[in-house]
Every structure is written in structure tokens, then in C-alpha cells.
């Protein structure tokens, strides 16, 4: 039973990581912008949801309100500031977005204070549900899994099947060409940034009832999100999905089983030191292995097949040489 619960834990963690990382990889891949403030958007989403839920008294209103608010907030932020950073080098972007982290953290502190905000899960989901046998699992975590899958599917549909998605994929593989083809990149970028902010805010809002809503809560996830972006391939939403699953599973299952596995070969005194250390390293070891074999990450941007390019059987050299994104057939 334990392994089922740990798998569910890993899945739930992965899906939330994906929601968070999807926006980051799009912004990084398409606008070539390193946005360190992505974690702040996650924090703001959680605060917005907590505040709106307390104000309206309804969890659903709070969640939807936070989603809309974060979308709008992302759009405004892009127009006012982020837009000016695209042409700058990465160092400038890092400095500017790091400044944003500090500004957002202190602003939140001024508005809501240093005490973490109270935010409870809706009563209907606060219990646990039986899964198999005597295993019970948190209803809220199950709902997160369902919601994560739905959002991932919606995102997949949007990126792989719609015109905007086509622009996004094209933009990720060749930005200049998309501009040449007459796509209004300005508004496309605003839309992508707003989408990324909304997704990040949604992850924050959805996780908030399990977490403490506090200043700086976004920084912890940010590092993992960058691991996911790099492992998945910068700019690839599918890459981010697969990488989020990998990272989430390796992290959860590593923490769950690594100490036990080590215990079978090593004395307990060493295991209690080595186990936790190795478990917290496992994600980064995964990243090193992936990058050693695939320096650009698992998926090149814009590909829509489930398999990465290097695993695909190519029908003919002619087709293989065509533009990225055309392999969806």
C-alpha cells in the first residue's frame, strides 16, 4: 500500500511542479528571458487566493479570482517592465528580476505582515478518501492531481492544436522568423507572460491550503523549476511536463525509499547521515546525467511528438529536415 501512496505523492508533486515550470520554460524559451521573479508570481497567487477566499468566503471564487488576477498582473508586469528586458543580456535580466523578488517580498510584508496567512482547504475536500484496502489518501491532494492533469491537457491542446500554440512553438524555435512572418510578437509575448503568471499563480493558489502562505514561499520551488526547464529543454512545454514528472518522482521516491535501500547494505549510523543527503541530491544527480547525454535537455523546443527527436524513427531524410513542429503527424 505504501508504494501506491508514494506514487500518488510523486504524481501530485510532479503536476504542481509542472504548472509552475510551464510558464518559466515558455518565457525562457520564447522571450529568452531569465525570470527569477517567477517564484514571486507563485507567492502572489497564493496570497491572492488566500485574501480573496477570506473576502468572498468561497474557495472556488478565491481560486478563480486569483487565476484571473495573476493573468492580469502578469500582463501589466510585462507591459510595464519585462518588455524592456528582452533586448538586455542575461545578467541585466537576472539583476532586474532579482530586484523584483525583493520588491514583491517586501510589498507583501507591508500589505499582509510577516505572519503567514491562514488559508484552509474547502470543507468538502479536507478529509481523506479510501483508495485500496485500508489506504486512505488526502482528498485535496487527489483533487490537485485531477486538476493538474486537466490543466496539462488543456495546455497541450493549446500548444499543439491551436494557432496561438503554433506561434508559441515557432517562437520558441526561431523568434526572428516568426516576427518576419508578420506575427504581432509584442502581444504574443504579453499573452505568454500573462499565461505563465496565471499558471504559476494557480500552482501557488492550489498548493496554498497545504502550505503556509508566507513571504519567500516561491524561492524554494524556483530552483527545482529551473532544473525542470533545463532537463526538459528550454522552451518546450512537453519537455517541462516529462521533466516535471521525472523530477517530482525522483525527489519523492528518492526521499521515500533511498534511506531504506541504503539500510539494506550499510549500517544505520551511516544511513541516517547519508540517506537524507543523497535524497536531497537525487534531483541534481538526475540533471547531471540528463545533461551529460542531452546537453540541450530532453526535448528540443517546438516538437510535438511524445518522443524526443533522437528517439524517433525518421521516415525519410526529406521529412526529418523540415521545420520543427511539423512532426505532429
Amino acid at each position: 500500500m505504501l508504494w501506491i501512496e508514494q506514487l500518488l505523492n510523486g504524481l501530485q508533486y510532479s503536476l504542481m511542479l509542472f504548472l509552475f515550470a510551464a510558464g518559466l520554460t515558455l518565457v525562457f524559451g520564447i522571450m529568452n528571458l531569465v525570470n527569477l521573479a517567477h517564484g514571486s508570481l507563485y507567492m502572489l497567487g497564493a496570497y491572492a487566493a488566500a485574501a480573496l477566499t477570506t473576502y468572498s468566503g468561497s474557495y472556488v471564487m478565491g481560486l478563480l479570482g486569483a487565476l484571473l488576477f495573476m493573468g492580469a498582473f502578469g500582463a501589466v508586469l510585462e507591459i510595464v517592465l519585462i518588455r524592456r528586458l528582452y533586448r538586455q543580456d542575461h545578467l541585466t535580466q537576472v539583476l532586474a528580476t532579482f530586484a523584483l523578488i525583493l520588491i514583491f517580498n517586501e510589498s507583501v510584508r507591508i500589505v499582509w505582515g510577516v505572519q503567514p496567512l491562514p488559508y484552509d482547504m474547502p470543507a468538502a475536500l479536507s478529509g481523506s478518501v479510501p483508495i485500496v484496502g485500508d489506504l486512505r489518501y488526502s482528498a485535496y491532494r487527489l483533487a490537485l492531481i485531477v486538476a493538474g492533469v486537466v490543466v496539462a491537457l488543456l495546455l497541450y491542446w493549446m500548444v499543439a492544436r491551436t494557432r496561438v500554440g503554433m506561434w508559441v512553438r515557432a517562437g520558441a524555435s526561431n523568434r526572428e522568423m516568426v516576427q518576419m512572418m508578420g506575427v504581432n510578437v509584442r502581444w504574443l509575448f504579453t499573452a505568454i507572460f500573462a499565461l505563465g503568471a496565471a499558471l504559476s499563480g494557480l500552482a501557488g493558489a492550489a498548493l496554498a491550503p497545504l502550505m503556509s502562505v508566507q513571504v519567500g514561499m516561491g524561492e524554494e520551488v524556483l530552483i527545482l523549476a529551473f532544473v525542470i526547464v533545463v532537463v526538459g529543454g528550454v522552451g518546450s512545454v512537453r519537455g517541462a511536463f516529462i521533466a516535471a514528472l521525472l523530477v517530482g518522482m525522483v525527489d519523492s521516491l528518492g526521499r521515500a525509499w533511498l534511506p531504506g535501500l541504503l539500510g539494506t547494505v550499510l549500517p544505520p549510523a551511516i544511513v541516517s547521515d547519508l540517506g537524507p543527503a543523497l535524497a536531497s541530491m537525487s534531483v541534481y544527480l538526475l540533471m547531471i546525467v540528463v545533461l551529460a547525454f542531452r546537453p540541450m535537455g530532453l526535448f528540443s523546443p517546438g516538437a510535438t511528438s511524445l518522443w524526443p527527436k533522437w528517439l524517433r524513427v525518421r521516415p525519410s531524410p526529406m521529412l526529418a529536415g523540415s521545420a520543427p513542429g511539423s512532426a505532429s503527424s
Partner: protein
Amino acid sequence: MKRITRWALSLMACASLATAGATELRIGVMTTLSGAQAVSGVDMRDGIELAVKQLSGKVGGQPTRLIVADDQFNPGAAKQIAERLVKKDKVQVLTGIIYSNILLAAAPVALENGNIYLSSNAGPSQYAGAQCDSGFFSVSWQNDAVHEAAGKYAQDKDYKRVILVAPNYPAGRDATTGFKRFFKGEVVEELYPKLGQLDFAVEIARLREQKPDAVYFFLPGGMGINFTKQYRAAGIPDKTSLLTSQFSADQDTFAASGDAMIGVYNTGHWSTDTDNAPSREFVAGFEKAYGRLPSFYASQGYDAIMMIDAAVRAAGGNADDPVALRKALAESKFKSVRGKFSLGPNRFPVQDFFVRVVSRDSKGRLYNKTESLVLSNHADAYGAACTQK
């Protein structure tokens, strides 16, 4: 022009220092006031300021200047700020630090200059044992002590199988060591999540599988809030008792954790319901001034000022003589909010520890209801190694 103004300003600052009277008492309060870890620091500062206010701004009967600084939860910055407080502001006493790693960086600055560091929170084993210093005093506890009380409580309750959860960093290891020093049953498993980890689903699954009699967790601040909320949502049967210390269950975490904390047993040396005159006066004063109940951090800040007050009075009002002030502090008799209070030979408190249970008061707010005495006149395990008396 700008530069000239700055010069003029710093000259004026120097002048104002020079004119200060010899009897002025200057207390440096360095604590964590920004970032995610600031909750406890803000309470510390508020407790200290309240005490000074209640003494009408005259600690020890002397005109008092409080110099409050933010350590930014950064040992490097803390060291620099301590230098500034000690050398430029010439504080006679430094206090307020919450975290052990900050204290280990900053306290030496005060001690090397012959000043006094009065710890109102962190109590690392170094200063209780071999590295103890005649200028270092604690008005709180040695780090292990609260966990030792929890271990004793688990032992008294006759729990057979216990799982320990603590972050994988020195204070986390100290916590499990302290617990095991007094708990003689079986420790089924020790889980060490990463410091700052926010999702404990994996650890909670282990707890469910192992079905221990009790879980003892030391997860400070946000980690503890998350753990408790997630533990409650996981639907683990009530057969397993949830046990922790004041670091995870006090006024600083109640607001955010809400009902999830109700019924959690935890150990500490003081609670808002501690029944004595100084405590009642402190709680009422704090509530009136800040509109919330004080955490134990605030109580320790308050006690620190009251301890300095008594010592300066005993030293005849002369705060500039560090030797006399040290002697007075070591023998200090002040009315602590926790009731009886005395210092051991290593200048760490010898005190009682209680078990409390998180409950609702008559106004519907969460508070720690004191249940019973767990450890009486408890001194820490390191004092014997302290040679500098």
C-alpha cells in the same frame, strides 16, 4: 553637495554620541526582521520594546537607548551589524538573535570587546559547554532542553514506538539527540527532510505505514505549519499522538495553521496562561499594545529586558562597568514571566519545562493550555564542560 550633507550628518551623529551621559544604557537589539523568517524576530522586538515602555524608558533606572537592527537572517551581515552596534553605537549589551547560526557569527563580536551578549532565544551547545564565556548569558534555554522535555514527556506517557522528524541541519540533529537523551523506548525511524522543505507527503506516508505511538517533530516556522496541515489532511488515525515543541506550536504559527494545531501536545517553559503576576501583566500589556497574543519569543525578549533592569539596579546603576554588570547578571534576581528562574554555573537557565496542549480560549483564539510539569529545575547537559566560571 550630497557628500557634504552626509558628512555633516555623520558629524552630528558623532556629536550626539559624545554628549550622551555616562550613565546612559545602550542595548543593541539584533534580530531577524525581514524575509520569510521574520515572524519570530518581530515578536522578539515587540516584547523588548514593550518591556522598555513598561519601565518608562528607563531600564535599571537609567536613561535607555534601544538600537534595533535587522540581521537579515544572514550570518555575514549579522557580524557586520554587530560590529557597528558594538563599536559605533557602543552598546553595553547585545541581545535579540533568534537563530543559532546567526548567534554564532555575531555574539563573538560583543564578547571579544568585553561586552555582554544576553541570548533571548538561541542557545547553541558551544556557549553552554566548552566555549562558554563569562560575558555570555542566556535568558531562554539551551537548544536541547525543550526537546529533552519532549523526550521525558514521551517516556512518562510510556510510548513504545516513536518516529522523529527534524530538518537535516545541526539544530535538527540536536533536537533528536535531546529527545533521545530522555526517551528510552524504541525510535522506529528518524526522518530528516531538507531544511525549508514544504511538502511532507512522503514523510507522512512513512508515518502512516509505521503506525507509531507518537510522532515527535521539530520543524520551525513555516515547515511546522505545513507539516501539521498536511498531517491532518492525510487522515492518519488518532492512535498516533502528535508531539512537538514550542518552536512549531506557539502564537507565531497558530494564525496560519488554524484548527490543524488543536490537540497538538508540545513542550515549553512558558505559555500565555502561565499563572503569575509578571506573566499576567506581560500578556495583558502585549495584547493591549499590539492586538495579539504574545509568542514565547516575545516573552523571552521581555524577560531579557527585565533581567538587564534588575542587574543594572544591582550594579548601582552603572552600566559602563562590564565586570560589575556581569556579576550582577550572573546573580540576577528578577521576576521572570515563567515564574521561578535562576542561572546555572554556565550562565544558562535552570528552569521548569511544561507540556501544553493547543486549545481554544474563551474568545475562540488558539493558545497553549498548560497541562503538567515535565522537567523540574532542569539544567542542560553541557554545563560540566564549561570551565570559565
